[in-house]
């Protein structure tokens, strides 16, 4: 552990508490039938990591194929299946549940001083739905795959492909309900289960941003569900709603799909933003600058996020007048993100900054998300969208926000709370190395794609004109580095389960309620209901707290 960390008196003598949520019960069934939010979070963590490896392996295959201009590694339709599965797995089985279902599940009750989520059984049901969806996706993959792209564009998906659209659709439908129930659970919990004194403006920002994301999950996902049901019906009985030859409008599908899928990108990023708030505050030992602005900007993103979906359809034949409205609103929704970035930056001002791994990932997030977000504005601007849409510029944009942004935030969060979850530290030096490797590999992989996109290279191409090869080789090389960067944490985090240093209750000296209890926590989290008598990120309160303990110990 780095020497920069102040040690609490109990730190030196720390040991893993004998009774905690992990050791409480034993046996596989005690896990599979648990209703403890912390155990469910662990179940999610394992399954999500599994699907991330699959998605990552598929990404590797994509990059290998794109090493050469011809489609020589595999046939075009195999390639199409590969990127479709990559998109489906990464979005629905990895990134949407990533932070909320693991860290959110684990931490929200702890942070607000509750014993569990409001609906523990529903929480477990969520996980089973997720697994059912995941198994269906695996089944699809084994039984021939699907090649519609993750966007299921009609009428391609309804009339022109004969791959497993139905099973994939069903998988996403089911996984969607998993996400609805998670969101529902969070909202109820945050409203109804807060400890005494835990007012809205004392909530950690992580809770705020998960709350905002939950609103999007609850209100957006059902529209995706109905869109998928309609696709399934169109495929099986030919109802005609999306079929132009029967008078239907294929664009209607786009409207319904993006009504969910645009808010979904904020479902993906908002919880990550919450992680960044916590991490930046903890390692600069300072209250988050402009707490209320950051909190409200999450809600603003959630609300405005519902009004911009048409920016995915600007050249698809929507009315130019409604394009104007949606483009304008896209500009508005970009502002709260800018607010957040600057507030995090100014949280550093006059702080006392240390550079542990989570902080490195957080810095990575800030830089890469800014690039990704600003290029999103390029796409939201209708004029430039004409040139850039459906090219690698988009691919670069969303990997910058999703991988550079959210995945970095996820890793920041995993490292940050690892000691709380497992009771042990991760190895600091190698993890710092991994963070740097990831950052370098990431830029190598995805920055060239902006240039490729500007040059006009279309996305979803198995073969491309030879003059684009140099940049593609860069990208593939970068992906290899990136893969190593992601492999490392999987390895050393597993290693640390057994050999990591014992962490103690509060290794980072952070202020959140979750840090004031033992790690790993007890099944019932708190023995007495905690009473919140200070604001979030009140480091002075923590100082006083420490003095008191030293006094009583001495």
């Amino acid at each position, binding site marked *: 552990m780095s020497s920069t960390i102040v040690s609490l008196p109990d730190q030196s003598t720390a040991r893993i508490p004998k009774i905690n949520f992990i050791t409480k019960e034993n046996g596989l069934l005690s896990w599979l039938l648990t209703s403890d939010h912390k155990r469910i979070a662990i179940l999610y963590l394992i399954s999500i990591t599994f699907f991330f490896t699959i998605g990552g392996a598929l990404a590797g295959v994509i990059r290998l194929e794109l090493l050469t201009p011809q489609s020589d590694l595999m046939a075009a339709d195999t390639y199409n299946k590969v990127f479709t599965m990559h998109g489906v797995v990464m979005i629905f089985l990895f990134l949407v549940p990533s932070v909320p279902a693991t860290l959110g599940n684990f931490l929200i009750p702890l942070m607000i001083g509750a014993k569990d989520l409001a609906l523990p059984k529903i929480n477990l049901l969520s996980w089973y739905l997720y697994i059912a969806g995941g198994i269906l996706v695996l089944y699809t993959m084994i039984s021939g795959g699907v090649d519609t792209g993750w966007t299921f564009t009609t009428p391609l998906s309804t009339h022109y492909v004969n791959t497993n659209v139905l099973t994939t659709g069903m998988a996403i439908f089911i996984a969607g309900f998993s996400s609805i129930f998670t969101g529902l659970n969070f909202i109820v919990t945050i409203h109804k289960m807060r400890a005494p004194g835990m007012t809205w403006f004392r909530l950690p920002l992580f809770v705020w941003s998960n709350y905002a994301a939950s609103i999007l999950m609850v209100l957006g996902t059902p529209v995706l569900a109905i869109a998928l049901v309609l696709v399934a019906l169109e495929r099986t009985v030919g109802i005609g709603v999306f079929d132009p030859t029967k008078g239907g409008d294929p664009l209607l599908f786009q409207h319904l799909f993006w009504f969910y899928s645009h808010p979904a990108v904020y479902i993906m990023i908002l919880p990550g933003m919450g992680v960044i708030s916590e991490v930046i505050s903890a390692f600069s030992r300072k*209250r988050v600058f402009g707490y209320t602005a950051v909190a409200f900007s999450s809600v603003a993103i959630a609300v405005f996020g519902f009004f911009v979906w048409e920016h995915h359809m600007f050249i698809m034949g929507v009315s130019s007048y409604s394009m104007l409205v949606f483009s304008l609103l896209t500009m508005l929704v970009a502002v709260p993100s800018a607010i957040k970035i600057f507030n995090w930056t100014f949280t550093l001002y006059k702080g006392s900054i240390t550079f542990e791994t989570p902080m490195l990932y957080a810095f990575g997030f800030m830089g890469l998300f800014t690039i990704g977000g600003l290029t999103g504005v*390029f796409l939201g601007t209708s004029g430039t969208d004409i040139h850039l849409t459906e090219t690698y510029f988009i691919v670069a944009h969303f990997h910058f926000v999703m991988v550079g942004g959210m995945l970095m935030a996820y890793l920041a969060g995993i490292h940050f709370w690892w000691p709380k979850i497992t009771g042990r530290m991760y190895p600091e030096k190698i993890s710092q190395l991994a963070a740097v490797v990831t950052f370098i590999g990431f830029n190598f992989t995805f920055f060239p794609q902006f240039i490729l996109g500007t040059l006009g290279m279309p996305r979803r191409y198995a073969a491309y004109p030879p003059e684009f090869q140099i940049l593609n080789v860069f990208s593939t090389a970068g992906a290899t580095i990136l893969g190593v960067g992601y492999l490392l944490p999987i390895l050393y985090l597993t290693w640390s389960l057994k050999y990591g240093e014992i962490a103690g209750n509060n290794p980072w000296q952070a202020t959140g309620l979750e840090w004031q209890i033992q790690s790993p926590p007890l099944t019932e989290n708190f023995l007495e209901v905690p009473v919140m008598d200070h604001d979030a990120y009140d480091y002075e309160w923590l100082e006083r707290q420490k003095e008191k303990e030293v006094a009583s110990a001495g």
Partner: protein
Amino acid sequence: MNHISPVIWQFFVKWLTNFELYPPEASRIAPQMDALYFFMVLVSLIGLTIVILLVTSFCILYSKKRHPVAVQIEGSTLLEATWTIIPLGLFLIMFVWGALIYFRVYTPPANAMNIYVVGKQWMWKAEHPGGQHEINSLHVPTGQAVQLTLISQDVFHSFSIPAFRVKREAIPGRYTTVWFEPTTPGTYHLFCTQYCGTNHSQMIGDIVVMTPDDFKKWLAESTSGASLAQNGERLFASLSCNACHNGRPDARGPNLANVYGSKLTLTNGQTQTADEAYLRESILNPSEHVTQGFSPIMPTYQGQISEDGVIALVEYIKNLNSNYRVDQTLNTTGLLPEGEGKVAPAARGSTARGMVKQ
């Protein structure tokens, strides 16, 4: 931006293009779009630099070593307002500028030359008015506004010419348009950018920009004998459209001469400009908009004519400015039985239908 300093601009773009970091500018809209693009790049770089500079300098100044005790600060409304308003203002500039370009790209000028493009899995078929067909290539002259009328026969495709900075989706069941004015002769990429199934990446081709003289030569060489309108005429006869649209005072269908571009009044009281899309709809879904004074007796040709055929018919009707041709092709097939679907003669005739050439 090119009006500010054309020399520097051109040097910059040339330099980027030479290193294949930037696509060539080969249409009138391209420099305009690039001006906006580089404006946005500039703003982004400045924004990013500000963020990075702030973060690094704070990290250095306030690292634990130099600044062991953090000073707690609540926030600052003034700063909050600053970084709300400045990005918002910049984004709004981009929005307005972008919208101007968007409308420019999708509003063809009146004198544009029209080329039809049909997308299907997995090829592009372009049809010039003179009857020249091209597969996966498109020949266009410089200095002439070219309008594309696009349609897809199956799924969504997208017609993309990076060097022109234009792109438009070809949609099943509906015409869409885009236009450009090529400026530099050469051969440029044509891509299908909307994922459309297995061979999506093979749905590519060449845009050949020629000088007007070369283009004339090319047109003459590649003519297939019959113009698009002539093909349409043949279809018009063989589908017995002229049984009803024969331009006679007692015809059961409206007179189609000069119908293109006119404002029609429909039975539901709405007015409608007869553009290509309207003509197409009238053939495939005639009863969706019935012209005033007629009853919805026209049969639907949905599923009976290919998109190419519809295009030929549309082109024929567009060029129909007198009844002479209809009379000539009349009666290659027998007349349909008289009687049903007729309306009072007073309601007929071009002026009675409120047909005004726009």
